[in-house]
């Protein structure tokens, strides 16, 4: 199969993730969309590794996964704490700071 197709999928995933961040209201879902974007990058890395014929991209994917996991942990901590004080995970409700 033409490896370029994987790139198309990756671009699609990235775009969907980015638009998801814009359109969703729930901060957890927004965060999941960001994870989608990271995974799109991972897919691109792996595909390019295949195209370029070296393994760098695959190793990088490992690093990305670990970093993404750490991000999940930190993100969940922040979101849970704000949910507990506001009873809402909606990003529309956090706008005390503005202008």
């Amino acid at each position, binding site marked *: 199969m033409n490896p*370029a197709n994987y*790139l*198309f999928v990756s*671009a*699609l995933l*990235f*775009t*969907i993730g980015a*638009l*998801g961040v814009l*359109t969703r*209201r*729930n901060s*957890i*879902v927004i965060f999941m969309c960001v994870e989608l974007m990271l995974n799109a990058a991972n897919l691109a890395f792996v595909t390019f590794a295949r195209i370029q014929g070296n393994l760098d991209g695959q*190793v990088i994917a*490992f690093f990305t*996964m*670990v970093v993404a*996991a*750490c991000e*999940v*942990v930190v993100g*969940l*901590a922040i979101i*849970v704490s704000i*949910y*507990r004080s506001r*009873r*809402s*995970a*909606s990003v529309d409700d956090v706008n005390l700071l503005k202008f």
Partner: protein
Amino acid sequence: MNLYIPILAIGAVGFGFAIFSVLAAALTGPKRYNRARLEAYECGIEPTPQAVGGGHIPIKYFLTAMLFIVFDIEIVFLYPWAVSFDHLGLFGLFEMVIFIATVFVAYAYVWRRGGLEWD
């Protein structure tokens, strides 16, 4: 060159798809306020247990999930090392010991600060 131009096209398609689906939902879907969309999981399933403390999601759930992710992910580095540890020799061993020790520090922290106690 030609090989990659479709990336742009696909990007545009993806963008259009997302806009289309949002618009379609807005135009065709029922326009009423839907509480479920503000739920944590947005899929109709109410987080349980419900109502005991006014709808608290038990914090333990999240804590455990987070701990799981942290300690689970270290395997990513252990696996490649295990495959070629004979090539890496003492250097690899040393580095891996440092890595595991560091993760263990995190574990010790969680343990001492009561993160592992269910109540």
